[in-house]
């Protein structure tokens, strides 16, 4: 029973981790809490769903890649419209404008896709495995493996590629990076795209896992992923991954043993405890500033 819940927690945690990494990447380069990131995730789920519905029998990878491209563009659009033109003279202005973007995106989604929960059709034959008393379906294994692969790819990208190095340089200091020949503006936009790729993929995987998609899923995940990012430390990519898995476990375990209504309470009690006692997160903040 306990091990079974741990596996469920791992699945939920994988979703959170992918979104939290996006938050932390954007926070790293811009010191910005990108409030609308959860909505990018939601759009990813809907794009994936509509690809699956439009071509029956389509390969699930096509849906995931399609959603990633779509959300990449949406993320770019948000950065160009709601973040770039906003003056950074007022420290909260960019944050507030992404809150505006959240309102726009959520309600545009309601208008386009309707305000109801939509079922995500089965895209693969679910095979149920019984291993040592645990029940795991192939769908669960697929979403978990996909999430981990995406995280590893991102990790390689940030640490091994030229663009990744530019991102790390910009996160360190915009001025120094610019002096060293990094195109800061382009790197920031690119970071938004990478973060949105991950959110889009996470959205589709979440749709497959829970077999339901709704315009309101964005805000829920956004708030949970924010907690994950704080748990791991702002701007810390590995921290966000671990934070995601920890929160996923905590939520599932508290829901299983204490009832679902207390699940959210736990999330926010964790949030507040961290904010008060360890604002730098479990693994340390990678960025300076308050």
């Amino acid at each position: 029973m306990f091990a079974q819940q741990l596996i469920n927690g791992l699945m939920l945690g994988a979703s959170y981790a992918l979104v939290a990494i996006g938050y932390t990447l954007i926070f790293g380069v811009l010191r910005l809490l990108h409030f609308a990131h959860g909505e990018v995730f939601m759009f990813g789920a809907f794009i994936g769903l509509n690809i699956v519905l439009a071509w029956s029998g389509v390969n699930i990878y096509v849906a995931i890649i399609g959603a990633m491209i779509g959300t990449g563009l949406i993320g770019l659009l948000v950065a160009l419209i709601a973040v770039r033109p906003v003056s950074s003279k007022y420290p909260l202005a960019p944050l507030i404008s992404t809150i505006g973007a959240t309102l726009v995106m959520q309600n545009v989604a309601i208008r386009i896709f309707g305000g109801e929960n939509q079922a995500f059709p089965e895209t693969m034959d679910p095979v149920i495995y019984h291993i040592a008393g645990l029940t795991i379906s192939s769908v669960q294994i697929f979403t978990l493996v996909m999430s981990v692969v995406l995280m590893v790819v991102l990790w390689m990208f940030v640490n091994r590629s030229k663009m990744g190095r530019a991102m790390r340089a910009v996160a360190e200091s915009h001025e120094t990076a610019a002096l060293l020949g990094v195109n800061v503006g382009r790197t920031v936009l690119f970071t938004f795209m990478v973060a949105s790729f991950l959110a889009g993929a996470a959205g589709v995987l979440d749709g497959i896992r829970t077999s339901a998609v709704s315009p309101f899923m964005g805000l829920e995940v956004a708030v949970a992923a924010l907690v994950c990012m704080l748990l791991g430390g702002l701007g810390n990519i590995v921290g966000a991954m671990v934070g995601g898995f920890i929160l996923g476990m905590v939520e599932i375990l508290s829901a299983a043993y204490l009832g679902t209504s207390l699940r959210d309470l736990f999330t926010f009690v964790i949030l507040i405890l961290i904010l008060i006692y360890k604002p730098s997160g479990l693994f340390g903040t990678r960025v300076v500033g308050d």
Partner: protein
Amino acid sequence: MIFDEFVQSLLVFTGINIIAAFSFYVPFKTGQVSLGQAGFMGVGAYAAGIMTVKFGLPYPVGLLFGGVFAGFIGVCVGFPALRIRGIYLLLLTLGFAQIVQVIALTWEYTGAHDGFQGIPYQEHTIFYVYGVIILLLIFFSRLERSSLGRAMVSIHEDEEAAEVMGIDVVRTKLFAFGVGALIAGLAGAMFAHYLTYVDSRTFNILLGVEILMFAVVGGVTTYWGPILGACFLTLLPEGLRELRDLLELIPLAVTDALPYGNNVYDWLYEFLNFENEKRLIAYGLILIGMMIVRPQGLLTRRTVQRLAFWRRGAASV
């Protein structure tokens, strides 16, 4: 009543939104940004409701208790909040609002899932609402000229410098946070006794965002800003609906005569219908646009001074 029912309810909700926007404005004076004012509204609504429903106390007592209790909770939340700023504080207040929601959802005493029902209707809400607004305006205009008000502004500008100058930063910030929570509690209590029903979803994140919007769009450097912001954003959908009624006055012969007249008419008619999603999309666009064009809000301290100067100048001529 002097007004018909619709106008009255519109005035009441505008007034409650103004008070809610003020509750954001006070902590902001010391640089504390809160997304959790909806949570304090919830605390006030439930506390006042318990007083009037469960203990049968009169409305003013419930109202006062709702405000004071929310203020007390505000000070309790404000204590840990003193150590953190910026986005950390924003997240803390967000977390607080969520916890309030979960408690409202699970507490059997106040109806849990079914919501808090049977709160007595207060028909004179409109007088209470505008009475509170007038009291607050007097309070703010006094505060502006007091050493406490100046201390608040200086903490906003630079906390370290303010501390060096001998300002009690801890006390001032706690005071601001507590007063903000108290004002939100009053707004919540009046809201509950006007709708006669509240549940855990009434005071959600979206309401917190809307309260922030009222203040930020109007401008947070002067207390006239939240009033303007709340009025503008609350009345915008209604104003557009009025425009729609004007549109209906155009005779059919005119639209028939114009090329595409009917199509343009239909489109305009549909466009002006600002219900739920469309209203929120418009709010979002306004918020983004404001942050790009005028991040300091519609009204700033300087525009208010200039307006006042202009008025005085005109009077002396």
